């Protein structure tokens, strides 16, 4: 079959099972859009900014387990993808990005809308390709999807010059890939697994510390089985949230800088820390010397480079979390640990998450009500800031993969496009977005995309007229010398909603929210709820810089 390379590209995407594609056109990707015109399988979602495309594709990948795909033109189109690519890289999300490029004869000449996007994205992609030979395009695409989805997932970028896209090729899609320099390891080392299992049986005070790897390897059932057989409490990293039921008696919530006191106490006092698909990031460990100081550490991760990077590890196991836990379970017997459990339960009772409900509407109350109303049976997308941490603390997640948020990069502006991607991936699920007045204004133009696609997003803006998280940092680190954290002007988000032909409400009290939720949550209309909340609330507890996680302060 003879096709242009651009047509070949679209064929390849179809063969890879791509049904939704997020993008924005331009001159350099004209051939690709022309080829897309002919596809009966792929639905193209036209966003309003390329950052919207890449975040939407990211969330689409997170909720569907497929590879997310976004396309952009050369130059500014490509650079607009950069934040989103870095975001996906940090959160290990499988994605393929396709950028247009100026014609090969112009590459390297500072041509109009030329940027070296493969150079720019080298440190934030798993791999990238500049296609110089049209004949190689199908095999490059095959490799790109394979690399993106296997091992520790991540983004792969393909830069396609305009002239190459227009060349005629004989289309032949390879069935298999072979990359001699890339061979992810899935099965854990048998002897190490046995050693780990023995330690688990011997431990008196084990804690399971579960990260995003548990979700990406679909190991949530195995995690639960492991926790229950060991009677080991489970704490989540931010990325790991939703991998363990929020109402489970063994659940400790999130650990780390804004973690629960009881999670941090359990980790600090444990004698065995079982790390599953987590990376001992600095938001989790605080001062590294006082992190799990008395524990033997088992570290299971698919990425060998994560093991031993930040902390010393006693039993390193490279492999897919699901497969490793599965192999571990065969060595384990039900173990009761009532003393340890009692101790942990006492901490839970003694040091619960608390906030005052006096005065103005409290942002935590909004999250708590959303959690209670939905019973956790929704997908929650968030933006970045205090509201994100309150979701982590006060939303009780019941279903794997139900939190969609920017963990590693902390990208304000992720929320709305992510909610769009999530809703397109799961049309039958209720998707809510919890955002801040700062974050929402970073990608607010994507409301138009949501309207285009008739997505029934339920958007809650925790409006404190402030860049709350930074205000909190300035309170503690720069002596309350508040600088550039207060917005003198905040638009009326309910009116903005109306301008986009979406319903908009403004609420200022819990009672109003109680009344509104049954009205808005059950219909299929998009809505923006502008929640005017107290702007002086801090995310508490908080571990100050340089301190151990056990030294958190209430604030």
């Amino acid at each position: 079959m003879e096709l242009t390379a651009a047509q070949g590209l679209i064929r390849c995407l179809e063969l890879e099972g791509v049904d939704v594609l997020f993008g924005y056109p331009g001159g350099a990707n004209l051939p690709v859009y022309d080829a897309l015109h002919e596809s009966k399988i792929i639905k193209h979602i036209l966003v309003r900014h390329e950052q919207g495309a890449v975040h939407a594709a990211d969330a689409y990948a997170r909720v569907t387990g497929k590879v997310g795909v976004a396309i952009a033109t050369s130059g500014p189109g490509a650079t607009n993808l950069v934040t989103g690519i870095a975001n996906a890289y940090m959160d290990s999300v499988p994605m393929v990005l396709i950028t247009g490029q100026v014609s090969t004869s112009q590459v390297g000449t500072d041509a109009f809308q030329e940027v070296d996007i493969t150079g720019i994205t080298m440190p934030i992609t798993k791999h990238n390709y500049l296609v110089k030979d049209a004949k190689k395009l199908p095999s490059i695409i095959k490799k790109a999807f394979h690399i993106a989805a296997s091992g520790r997932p991540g983004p792969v970028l393909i830069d396609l010059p305009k002239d190459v896209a227009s060349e005629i090729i004989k289309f032949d899609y390879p069935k298999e890939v072979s990359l001699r320099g890339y061979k992810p390891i899935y099965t854990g080392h048998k002897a190490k697994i046995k050693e780990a299992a023995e330690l688990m049986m011997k431990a008196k005070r084990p804690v399971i510390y579960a990260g995003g790897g548990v979700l990406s390897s679909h190991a949530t059932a195995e995690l639960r089985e492991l926790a229950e057989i060991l009677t080991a409490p489970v704490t989540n990293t931010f990325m790991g949230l939703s991998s363990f039921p929020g109402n489970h008696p063994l659940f400790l919530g999130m650990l780390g800088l804004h973690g629960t006191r009881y999670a941090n106490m359990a980790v600090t006092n444990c004698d065995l820390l079982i790390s599953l698909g987590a990376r001992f990031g600095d938001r989790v460990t605080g001062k590294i010397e006082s992190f799990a100081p008395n524990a033997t550490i088992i570290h299971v991760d698919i990425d060998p480079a994560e093991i031993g990077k930040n902390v010393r590890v006693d039993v390193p196991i490279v492999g897919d979390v699901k497969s490793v836990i599965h192999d571990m379970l065969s060595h384990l017997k039900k173990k009761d640990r009532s003393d340890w459990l009692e101790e942990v339960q006492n901490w839970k009772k003694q040091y619960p998450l608390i906030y005052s409900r006096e005065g103005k509407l409290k942002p935590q109350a909004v999250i708590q009500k959303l959690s209670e109303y939905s019973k956790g049976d929704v997908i929650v997308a968030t933006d970045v800031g205090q509201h994100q941490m309150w979701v982590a603390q006060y939303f009780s997640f019941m279903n794997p993969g139900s939190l969609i948020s920017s963990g590693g990069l902390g990208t304000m502006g992720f929320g709305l496009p992510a909610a769009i991607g999530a809703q397109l991936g799961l049309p039958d699920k209720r998707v809510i977005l919890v955002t801040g007045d700062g974050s929402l204004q970073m990608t607010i133009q994507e409301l138009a995309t949501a309207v285009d696609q008739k997505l029934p997003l339920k958007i809650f803006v925790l409006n404190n007229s402030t860049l709350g998280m930074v205000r909190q940092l300035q309170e503690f680190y720069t002596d309350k010398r508040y600088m550039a954290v207060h917005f003198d002007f905040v638009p009326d988000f309910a009116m903005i909603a109306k301008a986009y032909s979406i319903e908009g409400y403004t609420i200022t009290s819990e009672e109003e929210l109680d009344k509104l939720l049954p009205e808005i949550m059950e219909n299929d209309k998009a809505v923006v709820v502008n929640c005017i909340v107290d702007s002086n609330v801090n995310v508490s507890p908080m571990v100050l810089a340089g301190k151990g996680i056990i030294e958190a302060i209430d604030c």
Partner: protein
Amino acid sequence: MRHTLAVLVENNPGVLARVAGLFSRRGYNIDSLSVGRTERPDVSRMTIVVEGDQSVLEQVTKQLHKLVDVIKISDITPEEYVDRELVMLKVNADPARRGEIMQIADVFRARIVDLGRKTVTIECTGDEGKINAFEESLRHYGIKELVRTGKIAMLRGHKATSLEEKRDED
């Protein structure tokens, strides 16, 4: 401690940038890096000398492995190996001192490769210690220009770090 890594990579455009970029952004110290073709046209070989303790070396190796274009990494530091570096120097040499300089070159089995009116250009190969000593012994004549290739290395005897042996070593 210094480690010598033999790294086989795909002979793809950009592979040097990928490796060099990795070292700089992760803050690893490269002493030297040399790269060239191998017995296979599709494979290049880098010899990287990196400074750091065992944990740094472990991270360097693991991070390098994450690059899709990196096929194989061998730390040959603890093995028996031959290593060589080539240096070219242009030394001030008025006719009165040429004799001395040529004698020094002889001692190091270096070769004069060019003569100018007031300079000689000498090439010398050897391991790092020899090259350093050679450079030192010419310094007081005034070295006008100096270029070193960086180290290349190969295991002694029948052992190899080529692709075919991949199975045994990994």
